């Protein structure tokens, strides 16, 4: 961004209004975070779709190869472990009561 743009003052009208759009500012913040996550998910899905398309066009990947792929045992195990950790980390984030060393070691 140009120096002028960086240095320009923020006029009053560009501020987000104090009054929340939903019932509380906390709910606004949660809804906006969730919307931002949805956006990130879409950007990633778009990218994977483009990637698959380009790999197929280049002859590196056959059409349908990913859908028809049968997971070998070692990769299936890796994915199971990664998925379990993801769920525990994200679903569990709001339920954690305390931090202890043993749990952290198991998560690593």
């Amino acid at each position, binding site marked *: 961004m140009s120096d002028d743009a960086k240095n320009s003052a923020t006029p009053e009208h560009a501020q987000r209004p104090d009054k929340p759009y939903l019932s509380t500012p906390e709910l606004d913040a949660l809804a906006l975070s969730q919307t931002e996550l949805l956006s990130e998910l879409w*950007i990633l899905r778009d990218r994977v779709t483009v990637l698959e398309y380009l790999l197929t066009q280049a002859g590196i990947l056959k059409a349908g190869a990913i859908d028809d792929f049968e997971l070998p045992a070692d990769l299936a195990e890796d994915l199971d472990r990664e998925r379990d950790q993801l769920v525990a980390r994200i679903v569990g984030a709001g339920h954690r009561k305390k931090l202890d060393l043993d749990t952290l070691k198991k998560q690593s």
Partner: protein
Amino acid sequence: MNVDQRARAGLQFLGSLQVFSSTALQQQAEADFDNAVEAPALTRDFQHDTDRNGWLQRIDQAREVVERSPAFRFNRLYQRYVAEENWVRAITGVERRREVFAKVAPTAPPSGDPRLHLNPDLDMPDYYQGVEWHLQPGGLDGYDLSAAMAFSGFIPYVFARGGFAAVAVGDNLLQQRRDVIQQFRSDNLKCIYDPGCGGSGTLGLCRERFPDAKLIGGDLSAQVLINGLKFSDKTGIHVELWQEDARQTSQAGGSVDGVISYALHHELPPEVSFDVLKEMYRILEPGGEMVISDPPPFRAVGPFQAVMLDWETENRSEPYFTEAGIFDLAQAMSDIGFVDVEEYPLQETRYPWVTRGRKPR
């Protein structure tokens, strides 16, 4: 010249969110309002004009009812989110390819070029100074790659899908401007002035209908005029551009036979709007015409739409939107001396809203 995948997909997401918000959520919100016990009385009130305080009071009453709808509250949250993120994603997308975009960025021609008259000494009016219109960080002149930000950024992926302010989802913005230009009664205007020409888009479409007319644009922003000249050179529309206040232009009295004003008056306080009309009257030759297109006034819409239009003032950095919705452009034109003054919508949605009149012969 394209932005990268992240920016493109991110902007396209905003376009989809805006479409959903302005169709499913908005329809639910409108149905919620229609079911409210206060709706019939509010709707009756909106069917006749009142004074400024009367309109503000009516809108407050309508807002209180409309905001009860959870669908409306989410609709507005998403509107604000898209309005902010437009800039975030377009600017960061352009910045990631700054070197490429900078090579083709419009630059000012040498001083003295008759196509562009910049005025570095122009006093920026108080109503304009420091406003970040539509939440644009730094305002209209703040970002040097604003043309890329708009044309490779939010215009194709978000703006073009509609669903914001008075623009409905699926509206063809280009065709709407063409339709507005069709509202000139004369088929052979010789010289047309646009008092808030921005990037020359409206003048470009005037060229389609009036291939031989001289086209002159004025604007306060040097950056948009520089962008407008580049657009003119690229498309061959041949415009002459002036950095000037539309209340006091460089054009001689009686020197033009057409004035086109597209989406300008809602950016002006009413007293400035009135003075701009007076100046346009001055530069028009006898018999010359003025055509204005802007969002509809409150007296032309129902309570639900009025609440949505009023929302723009506080939430999209449109400081004069509400006052413009109260201001009676047609009455002002008549008071100044225009004749054959008419106002009407071009679509069922009441937008574009056209006001037109003629200077007496």
